[in-house]
């Protein structure tokens, strides 16, 4: 079953001058795979990821996530869709600095609002435990080390049991030991078979260990 279908997607940057970033991209991703998007910088891999993540709606062509066409949907619909079905891990961890680790993990679920606060808290704590940072749960996230913050961010991306987890260079800011730990966690999550991960990276070693590689060159899939 295809969790993601991308058909004939074209994307232009208009600023500073018209530039064809993505050219006629077509591919499909099956459920339960760990897919990496690789390519040189400027090849359009991050741009593609943000299109897939529903945050960028300026494109032509068709993107379907779990059978839902993203093109032409309202901002509010996309926000809710993102909240329920897509988890994010960014390069620079990007936690809310004033909130505790636990609270950071809980936020997407609080926004979704389908469970009460206690069960969300329990689940968030479970995720932190799985990632082995439950001892940092009540600390403000700005006081955590980079590796710890990235693990909190991974926990946050998982809280709503998303169909898709999107990672933009998730290990780009980590040393090799933390990179291995993070990738180990990803592998473990995906191998359960319920979720799909799309990861932008330029680390060829990581790409080799993924299930599928989409390599971009000058905005085309090679």
């Amino acid at each position, binding site marked *: 079953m295809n969790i993601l279908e991308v058909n004939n997607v074209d994307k232009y940057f208009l600023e500073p001058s018209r530039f064809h970033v993505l050219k006629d991209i077509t591919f499909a991703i099956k459920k339960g795979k760990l897919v990496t998007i690789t390519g040189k910088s400027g090849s359009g891999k991050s741009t593609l990821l943000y299109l897939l993540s529903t945050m960028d709606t300026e494109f032509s062509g068709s993107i379907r996530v779990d059978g839902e066409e993203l093109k032409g949907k309202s901002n509010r619909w996309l926000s809710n869709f*993102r909240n329920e079905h897509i988890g994010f891990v960014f390069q620079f961890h990007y936690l809310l600095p004033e909130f505790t680790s636990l609270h950071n993990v809980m936020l997407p679920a609080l926004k979704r609002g389908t469970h009460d606060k206690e069960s969300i808290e329990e689940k968030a704590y479970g995720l932190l435990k799985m990632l082995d940072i439950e001892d940092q749960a009540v600390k403000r996230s700005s006081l955590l080390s980079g590796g710890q913050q990235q693990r909190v961010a991974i926990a946050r991306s998982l809280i709503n049991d998303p169909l898709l987890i999107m990672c933009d260079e998730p290990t780009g800011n980590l040393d090799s030991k933390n990179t291995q730990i993070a990738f180990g966690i990803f592998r473990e999550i995906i191998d359960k078979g319920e979720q799909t991960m799309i990861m932008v990276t330029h680390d060829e070693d990581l790409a080799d260990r993924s299930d599928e590689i989409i390599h971009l060159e000058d905005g085309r899939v090679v």
Partner: protein
Amino acid sequence: MATLKDVKLSVSIAMVHIRSKLRQTIVATVGVAFGIAVFIFMVSFIMGTNNYMMDITFEHSPHLRLYNEPTIAETTILDRKYPDWKNEVHNVRPRDVQLNLKDARQAIQEISQLQEVDAVAGSVKSQVFYRYGSNAINGLVNGIDFDNENRLFNLEEKLVEGSFREMNTIPNSLVMGEGLANRLNLSVGDRLNLTTEAGGTFSIVVIGLFKTGLTDIDRQQSYASLATVQRFLGVPASYITDIQAKLHDMDLAPQMLNKWKKRFGYQGSDWKEDHSTLLEGEALRSMIVYGVAITILLVAGFGIFNILTMMIYEKMKDIAILKAMGFSDTDVRYVFLFQALLIGAFGSVFGLIFGFLIAYAISTMPFESDVMVTLDHLPVSFETVYYIAGFTFGLITTFLAGYFPSRKAAKVDPISILRG
């Protein structure tokens, strides 16, 4: 629409922001509080003074006056005799009319029966010369029926020395304005001469002094009994030149006046005509107060605007993350709008409290004045409506100050920030 749950979540995020930026939040709150406090203090003080001035003026003036005035006849006798001719008469003189009101006693009787009327009194006013030694001062003598007049104007309270009551028992006696007595160098018990318009001169004794606080009255006027003044003028006891009345509801005055003018055929005026400058002045003063207060609040509003705008720049990343996690534009807007409203609400409440305290402190300050005799403390008005207005202004200003930055926050494009 955003659900209550969404709003609650936005509010909880806003609370975390506020807690982490406590000092900035307090500064903004103090700004609003200061604006509101100054507004409350100013309005209370200025309105208090205003009301005081109005009160003393109105206490000493009736809601309605009925009188007669010499008028120029619209048609000349020639017109009546030869209506078809074109007649030209130069230098038409006013008719020689009696200034008294016809059947005034019946009119007073009738008016005093009306439900709307609080008090009514007839009087005879006459221009006179007060002569004492070589001094001769032009002034007014007011022949009154003391009981009725007292109900109208609270005369008893204005008495400085002597007595009003003896006016009816001692013949040729009067109670004189303190300012007038000083000008003539008179004191209670002294005799002076009074010359009327018609030329008669009478000897009269001062049995008391009064002070209203209105210089015009105190320096020119004196009260005598109706009978005394009627005797000076050589007119019968039915001769009355003025009917003055106070109503239970002073806003009814213009309409009552019209009715009475028709009913009795007198001329007249109501308090709105008599005090148009004063009323106009009051309206202007209120405008100034509100103008200054709004300016202060605008400045406080700009403070909030600045702080929130800065905060949004600092929190760009957070906004982008929230949006990536699925928070909608509206959710993000509520986060910042709520902060503004919280600052506004707290600032307003503190402002009202401080404003009240300052106003209260001012109202206990002793203040003595020769002119405002009934005043011993600074006049301050404590009307609830000022506090409601202050609170509303505070909320509106902070809402506007928060609305624009928060709209900006809602429009943040997450990609441009997340990509770095």
